[in-house]
């Protein structure tokens, strides 16, 4: 393990310093703020890539990077842990964050105060939640992330944002209360809050305390299911994300995945072995299936592109939860690949929503009135001539092609990464043999439910996006103008290019997610590495370390 000693903490500290710097720079020095914001986000992405490279270089099992905050060893101090899953999530947040930051520079940063510091604090909360190995520290990073997200969600102000923001904040405060209750119950049973320590001591919990343990874990899971937007806890998501400005909504697509990430992390760590094996997997499975079904109904019911993007998040969350509920390493691996593809795809879609909304509307972001029916004779230009045979402006053509690409990505049709993700997911689900899972009461029929719902969700997404595309690109009343700034176009194309790279390099990525899933479903090396990491000898601690050395 030749981690640079402090590399693991960089994704947390860097955005924090950048945020402080951005507040000090004030609102006037615009060029400096842009440089700091994008520079810090880019540096965070590079650090995440370095962590990923380090973690994966160790072969099998992963070289897990452990950072002892303040040099205290694991059960007593807070640890930051970078394993394959954490590194993957860091890179995902870095990619989406970078392009959202670039996109925001075109217009949205001038929509209100303190966009840049809030953006960096949001990234800090996300990265911290992905890295931390301690439950209470996870709560703190959750709150950092949420507090920043409240500000970002309201960025630009206006009644729809404030109204949905009010609901969003209330729901999240309730979720935080549940988080604390679950955490307290777990502490009462286990006497520790370090995730690795809980996993190590789980087998020695007496049978009389096991009910309490399960209750605590279930309350904790409800808090995460609210964040992951599982049905019926997801009514807040679509209004809040639709009302938020485009780059913020793109970043929020990653935030929903934090809930999924924590569920994957804790569930595999605590319940992939031992007497409580597979506790709650059926709940995850059926909550996931219900979420997909709810998302599909929403997709069919709406014509607004923003809401379509919101419901696509629900569909992807549901798919991930159902896949996790199968409790199978191959399915988890495919689900991780699906998570990469789906998150980037929905982020692209959120950015497109605003660009598409601008067509023929003088460059003003305007999402109201999209539901108005176009009249029969609108397919004419200003001189009352039919539009057939007229040349498209090049920017509009690019916009249309990009929209089609984003649609194919979200729906999971070939030739993009969404297709590969769905095929590998369905393949893995169908390959499950009876008996692979300890409590497979219904896993066979559940497998067919997953296959059916995932395929049907793809169809519904395609239908919904096709209807929106026709309405916006073909029946705009002849005023085919679009104001897309170069920065916005570049960031959207960049994100699409990242998806294309994911398609081309699907095999190494899938190999990586396979290894990550294998690590997750056999968590003993993770636990051992975290608990075996000793503090570095310091000027005052050297005697103590020598005493403790085995």
């Amino acid at each position, binding site marked *: 393990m030749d981690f640079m000693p402090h590399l693991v903490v960089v994704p947390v500290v860097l955005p924090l310093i950048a945020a402080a710097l951005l507040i000090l720079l004030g609102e006037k020095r615009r060029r400096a703020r842009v440089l700091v914001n994008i520079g810090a986000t880019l540096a965070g992405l590079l650090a995440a890539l370095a962590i990923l490279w380090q973690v994966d270089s160790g072969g099998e099992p992963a070289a897990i990077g452990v950072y002892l905050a303040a040099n205290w060893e694991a059960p007593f101090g807070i640890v930051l842990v970078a394993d394959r899953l954490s590194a993957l999530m860091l890179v995902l947040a870095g990619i989406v964050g970078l392009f959202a930051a670039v996109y925001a520079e075109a217009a949205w940063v001038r929509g209100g105060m303190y966009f840049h510091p809030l953006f960096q604090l949001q990234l800090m909360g996300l990265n911290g939640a992905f890295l931390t190995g301690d439950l*209470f520290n996870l*709560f*703190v990073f959750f*709150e950092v992330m*949420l*507090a920043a997200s*409240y500000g970002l969600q*309201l960025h630009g*102000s206006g*009644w729809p944002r*404030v*109204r949905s*923001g*009010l*609901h969003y*904040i*209330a729901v999240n*405060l*309730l979720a*935080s*209360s549940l988080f*604390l*209750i679950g*955490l*307290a*119950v777990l*502490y*009462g049973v286990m006497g520790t*809050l370090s995730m690795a320590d809980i996993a190590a001591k789980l087998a020695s919990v007496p049978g009389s305390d096991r009910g309490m343990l399960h209750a605590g874990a279930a309350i904790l899971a409800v808090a995460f299911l609210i964040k992951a937007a599982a049905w019926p806890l997801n009514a807040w998501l679509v209004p809040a994300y639709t009302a938020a400005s485009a780059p913020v909504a793109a970043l929020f697509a990653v935030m929903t995945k934090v809930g999924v990430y924590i569920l994957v992390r804790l569930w595999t760590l605590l319940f992939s072995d031992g007497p409580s094996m597979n506790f709650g997997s059926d709940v995850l499975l059926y909550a996931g299936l219900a979420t997909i079904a709810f998302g599909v109904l929403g997709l069919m019911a709406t014509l607004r592109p923003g809401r379509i993007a919101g419901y696509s998040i629900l569909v992807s969350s549901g798919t991930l939860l159902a896949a996790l509920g199968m409790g199978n390493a191959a399915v988890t691996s495919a689900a991780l690949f699906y998570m990469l593809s789906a998150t980037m795809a929905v982020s692209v879609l959120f950015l497109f929503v605003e660009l598409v909304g601008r067509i023929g509307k003088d460059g003003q972001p305007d999402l109201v009135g999209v539901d108005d029916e176009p009249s029969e004779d609108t397919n004419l230009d200003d001189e009352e001539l039919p539009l057939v045979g007229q040349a498209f402006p090049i920017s509009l053509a690019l916009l249309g092609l990009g929209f089609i690409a984003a649609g194919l990505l979200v729906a999971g049709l070939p030739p993009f990464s969404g297709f590969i993700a769905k095929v590998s997911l369905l393949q893995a689900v169908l390959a499950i043999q009876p008996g692979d899972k300890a409590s497979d009461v219904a896993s066979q029929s559940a497998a067919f439910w997953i296959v059916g719902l995932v395929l049907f969700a793809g169809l519904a997404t395609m239908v919904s996006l096709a209807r929106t595309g026709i309405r916006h690109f073909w029946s705009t009343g002849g005023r085919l103008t679009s104001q897309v700034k170069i920065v916005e176009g570049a960031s959207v194309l960049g994100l699409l290019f990242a998806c294309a790279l994911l398609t081309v390099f699907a095999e190494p990525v899938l190999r990586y997610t396979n290894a990550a899933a294998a690590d997750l479903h056999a968590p003993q090396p993770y636990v051992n590495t975290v608990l075996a990491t000793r503090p570095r000898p310091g000027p005052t601690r050297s005697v103590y370390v020598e005493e403790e050395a085995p």
Partner: protein
Amino acid sequence: MEVLLALVIGVFGGAGVWLVLRPRTFQVVMGLTLLSYAVNLFIFSVGGLFLDKPPLVTPGLPTDLEHYTDPLPQALVLTAIVIGFATTALFLVVLLASRGLSGTDHVDGARDES
């Protein structure tokens, strides 16, 4: 003492849940505040309830849990109070913005007389 604390937590929690479900934003804020009281007391109580036992190591007392109370829940409660206070303050700001924009303190901004 345990019964009393359990009753207090239960009353706070019940009142909080009821208030959160009310249609006025002020009631929702009060409900969330009461819920956070209940949660904080609950965290405090998971370390066990003892009288006259310090959470810090004192010279002369043997260092085992017979003679001390668990310091960790107290530290957790402190952090939870601070964070809960900050997010509730943030919620209040949004509440005021909503009141200013909609002219009513209904959670949906509707002007009904419920």
